[in-house]
């Protein structure tokens, strides 16, 4: 029977075939699906996030690691669902109204999934009302807002205002090329991350506070 640490190493290295094989072997040997996720796959993506923050790896390596984890989750999610096991935290993510850019948002989404968040991706050009409705519907712990353009930063500000005014306990996190910590503070967001690795740390911190 393989060790969970082998699975962690396979995910971190982005070895998709090995990740799937090890997941199958662990399941066959009787490992609990939840343990495989929480003690095998998630630590692998955590390594990826740390390496990414330090520029030891770059976006391609992050993508192949996320794809490896995704393939393993295809095997595990039906088993988790049938056992009634869900990720502890739910996040909503989208690019704000007026902005069609999506690669940054997609990377954060992958990394949050890698940290075992349930992620609902609303896509691009998302109105404040749509964020609010999704946050309510999914009882989200976290809402992530992305903006690429300086011209869509006001939409981010409006969305934060509307979400805050609704009185939800949901934490709000912002990011994107023109966004800074100062802007996040100014508009009342709960968190800001400059990169996809940091986005996981901040998200965990925020939902820990919210929980």
């Amino acid at each position, binding site marked *: 029977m393989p060790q969970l640490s082998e699975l962690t190493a396979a995910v971190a290295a982005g070895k998709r075939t090995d990740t799937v094989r090890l997941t199958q072997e662990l399941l066959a040997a009787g490992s609990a699906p939840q343990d495989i996720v929480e003690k095998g796959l998630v630590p692998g993506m955590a390594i990826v996030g740390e390496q990414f923050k330090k520029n030891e790896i770059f976006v391609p390596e992050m993508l*192949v690691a996320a794809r490896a984890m995704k393939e393993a989750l295809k095997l595990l999610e039906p088993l988790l669902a049938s056992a009634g096991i869900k990720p502890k935290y739910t996040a909503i993510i989208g690019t704000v109204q*007026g902005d*069609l850019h*999506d*690669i940054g948002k997609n990377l954060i989404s992958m990394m949050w999934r890698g940290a075992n968040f349930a992620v609902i991706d609303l896509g691009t050009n998302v109105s404040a009302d749509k964020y609010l409705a999704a946050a309510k519907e999914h009882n989200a712990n976290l809402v992530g807002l992305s903006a690429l353009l300086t*011209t869509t930063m006001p939409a981010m500000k409006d969305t934060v205002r509307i979400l805050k005014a609704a009185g939800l306990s949901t934490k709000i996190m912002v990011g994107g090329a023109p966004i800074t910590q100062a802007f996040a503070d100014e508009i009342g967001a709960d968190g800001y991350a400059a990169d996809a690795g940091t986005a996981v740390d901040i998200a965990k911190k925020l939902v820990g506070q919210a929980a």
Partner: protein
Amino acid sequence: MTGCERVNRMFARQDQDRIPRCDTFWPETITRWQREGLLWDHEDALLFLQSDFQPLCWSWPAPFPQQKELITQDTETETYRDAWGGVVRYWKGRSGTPEHVGFGCDSRAAWDKIYRPALLAAPLQVNPKLSALRYQKGRQLGRWTFLSGVEGFEALRKQIGDEAFLVAMIEDPDWVRDIVQVHTDVVLRTFDAVLAEGIKPDGLWIYGDMAYNHATICSPAMYREFVWPQHKRMAEWAHARDMRVIYHTDGRVSGVLDLYIAAGFDCLQPIEAKAGMDIRQFAPTYGDRLAMFGNIDVMKMATNNLPLIEEEIRTKFAAGMATRGYAYHSDHSVPPQVSWDTYRAIIGFIDRYGNY
């Protein structure tokens, strides 16, 4: 001193009367400025700035240059299948980065069987005679004339999409090399056709956004392996024709400046401040080998806070001009938050601090 002389002296690190100038504006910025006093258009704003640069052509070759098929639309956006086979969603009636919904060239097999042969067989996608007319205009105005187009990194993104090409860098590296090389073949063939009109441009300005705020999108090692050889080839092609090379990329590229120099790039533009690029830090180290073009922070411009903008210009000009290898450009495109009065004040600051 003409603009052409000024820019060439900048590349030679010789004294100039003032720094060369150029800029880029969002369409919405020009629309705003027209309400606030700008008489005409983008060209008028560049005349007001006293731009020293004259573009001749733009080469971004596509496999199916005539293809633009409307697939769907709503009140705000239109979605097309474009000349590269991609499905792309654009805003109606305003600018902005489009959304790439999907890519026709979604596998090595699709590239080999459809897109590669189509790209190689596609007709010339610039008008050499129009380029020659622009060259004559540039010469009359004394401007520095340049060919421009897209390099391999940007071509990869457009042809197969970010996720596919980044994964392919690990899982199918030969595919990545082939796309970059074929694209470069076609771009250089295009430029040769323009030069066949008998013109002698001063430079080549190539575009490829290979970084974002945090770092380069791929590692320096991957850049060196997959894209850099074709960058070097483009620079050698230009240098063999007595042209200088300006490379445009957004994002934080401080980790690959040595590779740019080794490729033969003569100048970096626009040096994006919000990505942490600051010529005050690296002009003293790199300025003798790599001219710096830009770095004036549009986020500061967008505040319309004139003392803040003046300090930005004063300090960065001082750092750049110390090398004699510096030209003014905003660090991206001037956004519509910047008023016409503010931009006129910016030109005043350029006049005040940009003279040698």
